[in-house]
């Protein structure tokens, strides 16, 4: 099984495989890669400053998320893990929603209930992620069944890490997807580590893509730091799914360049040289070189993208930080479709207590 690559490290594309994407779209793809990296920097800094409680970077994995979302149509559904925030923004999710969510304030669309970074959007068909690893994989298979049942010509793509391939829901997800031939794309971001556990402790297989055959699924291994290659394999998988040929398993070989989350210190377990090696394969700089060589963007253009996002974010942050936490009522709403008596009673008790001690 050989790995699909299009861009070499100097940003030159294999002419046989180079996809035909418009200039506008290519530049948009770069913009959102830049945004993702910027969000990581901001998130980590805010966390270090104690202004938000948590941050999950996806630095080094920008090509997978943006390459994939660019290959989907906006109606297709995304089941993210937690290292794919760029897919939501690429589709139009307002940055304001993210920033309010970071600060878990009264305007947080998740109502202040999730760790910063774990957000979803129904409007942009980006499913609210879990934290337990792998649960979304089988759900995406079931969602695919629904699309098929409803004769909607849609695809679901589900993201998960190398660690998640050990989960029960990976196994049932690929199995159910294959048995029911659902229009589901199983996209594994093999970033080599599950917190501190290396791939060699995760599986005895030579390659994660070897798992596909055991479910009777086609498997593709792709250079996950090569956005054009990612774009192509996802396009191909979408075609299969929409033709009724069922799921594809994609293993994108990439690298988590940062810590697992803001709570993690990778220097405890990870050799420095490994990081250095992968930095040379950075997905953004490869794609920048490609676009510069094509004359689609300049260095100044790149810096402008960055600073424009930066300004926007800084403004949003200073607004969001001023807002109050969500109301007391949000502690009890959305447990059920209505408020049953016992939750109403508990709300009233708490409300009264707050009142007495205000």
């Amino acid at each position, binding site marked *: 099984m050989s790995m699909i690559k299009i861009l070499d490290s100097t940003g030159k594309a294999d002419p046989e495989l180079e996809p035909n994407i418009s200039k506008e779209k290519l530049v948009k793809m770069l913009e959102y890669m830049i945004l993702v990296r910027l969000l990581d920097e901001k998130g980590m800094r805010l966390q270090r400053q104690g202004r938000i409680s948590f941050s999950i970077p996806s630095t080094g994995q920008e090509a997978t998320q943006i390459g994939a979302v660019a290959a989907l149509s906006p109606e297709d559904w995304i089941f993210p893990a937690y290292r794919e925030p760029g897919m939501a923004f690429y589709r139009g999710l307002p940055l304001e929603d993210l920033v309010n969510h970071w600060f878990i304030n009264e305007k947080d669309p998740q109502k202040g209930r999730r760790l910063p970074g774990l957000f979803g959007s129904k409007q942009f068909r980006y499913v609210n992620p879990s934290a337990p690893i792998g649960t979304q994989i089988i759900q995406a298979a079931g*969602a695919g069944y629904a699309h098929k*049942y409803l004769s909607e010509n849609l695809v679901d793509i589900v993201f998960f890490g190398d660690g998640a391939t050990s989960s029960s829901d990976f196994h049932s997800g690929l199995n*159910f997807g294959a048995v029911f031939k659902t229009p589901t794309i199983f996209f594994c971001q093999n970033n080599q580590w599950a917190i501190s556990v290396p791939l060699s402790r995760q599986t005895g297989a030579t390659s994660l893509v070897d798992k596909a055959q055991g479910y009777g699924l086609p498997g593709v291994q792709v250079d996950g730091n090569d956005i054009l290659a990612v774009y192509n394999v996802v396009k191909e998988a979408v075609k299969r799914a929409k033709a009724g040929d069922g799921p594809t398993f994609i293993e994108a070989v990439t690298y988590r360049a940062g810590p697992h989350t803001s709570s993690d210190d990778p220097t405890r377990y990870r050799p420095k040289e490994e990081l250095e090696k992968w930095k040379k394969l950075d997905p953004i700089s490869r794609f920048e070189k490609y676009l510069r060589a094509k004359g689609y963007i300049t260095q100044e253009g790149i810096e402008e993208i960055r600073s424009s996002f930066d300004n926007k974010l800084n403004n949003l942050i200073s607004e969001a930080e001023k807002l109050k936490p969500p109301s007391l009522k949000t502690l009890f709403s959305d447990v059920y479709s209505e408020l049953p008596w016992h939750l109403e009673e508990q709300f009233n008790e708490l409300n009264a207590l707050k009142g007495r001690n205000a």
Partner: protein
Amino acid sequence: MSELTMVESVCFALDEELGRNSKLVILGEDVGPNGGVFRATQGLLEKHGPKRVLDTPLSENGIIGFAIGMSLMGLTPVAEIQFVDFIYPAFDQLISEAAKFRYRSGGMFTTPMVIRSPYGGGVRGAHYHSQSPEAYFTHTPGLKVVIPSTPYETKGLLTSAMREDDPVIFLEPKRLYRAFKEEVPKGDYTIPLGEARKVRVGGDVTLLAYGAMVHVALEAANIASTNHQIECEVIDLRTLVPLDIKTIEKSVKKTGRMISITEAPKTSGFSAELSALVAERWIEYMEGPIMRVTGYDTPFPLSLEQEYLPTAQRTLETIMKVYNF
């Protein structure tokens, strides 16, 4: 009009709702050509077709996870877990996912679905075909929990459950599946979730039960009345979450005595919750200890199954104890 067993009533409810709700899909192990190991889905595949009645691979986390995905996209999945003893591999999908999706997404994503499963003892099924794990579900905010006690009740409650906007655990007391028949009307009738049913009126002792234990409670109540002139009020809770607290309140305030009868192991069973509710709200009305008649704190046995399960005899002794306190 026809007399049906409980398991026929399950099948009847599913059949009619499949006819009414084109987005309803049934899935589980052996629910297809075999019609379910208890025949609760008999004939449904033939009538409604293979897109709507799905035999799945042998994976309960697969079944519930797949159902969640269906539900997120607008279908109404009704999943069968062959025996509730086999639901544990699906616990993560149930507790972390189905129960929390609405809350965690700020109300954006919802997962209405029904998970139906035979539960309980009395059929010589031993540990793995007899358990009563309802307490686990009642301790999981986000799930509703419903348990019927007769064929008529079954159809009305299951039909309601299939129209709920929340995930519902629907546990069917398998020892009642074929225990007796009852008139079960055709057509659309529902019994609302969250309302208990007073099965017997009495002023001396309140007996709370659900599922097969309703019949044990009734039997004990009848003996108590005949032999000891003690009149028990028997309440079939029907829905454990949300609970019908008003009906319980009225009854215990009237009788001043409460016993709950449940099959599951005693410690941390749903009986404990019932006792706790009464003890924190209406202790001043109580004229005797608040008692539980339950299964023992052991795995479910086989040869001593009849000793393990609450009986009318054990219930009666408890009634006497509370009454004569």
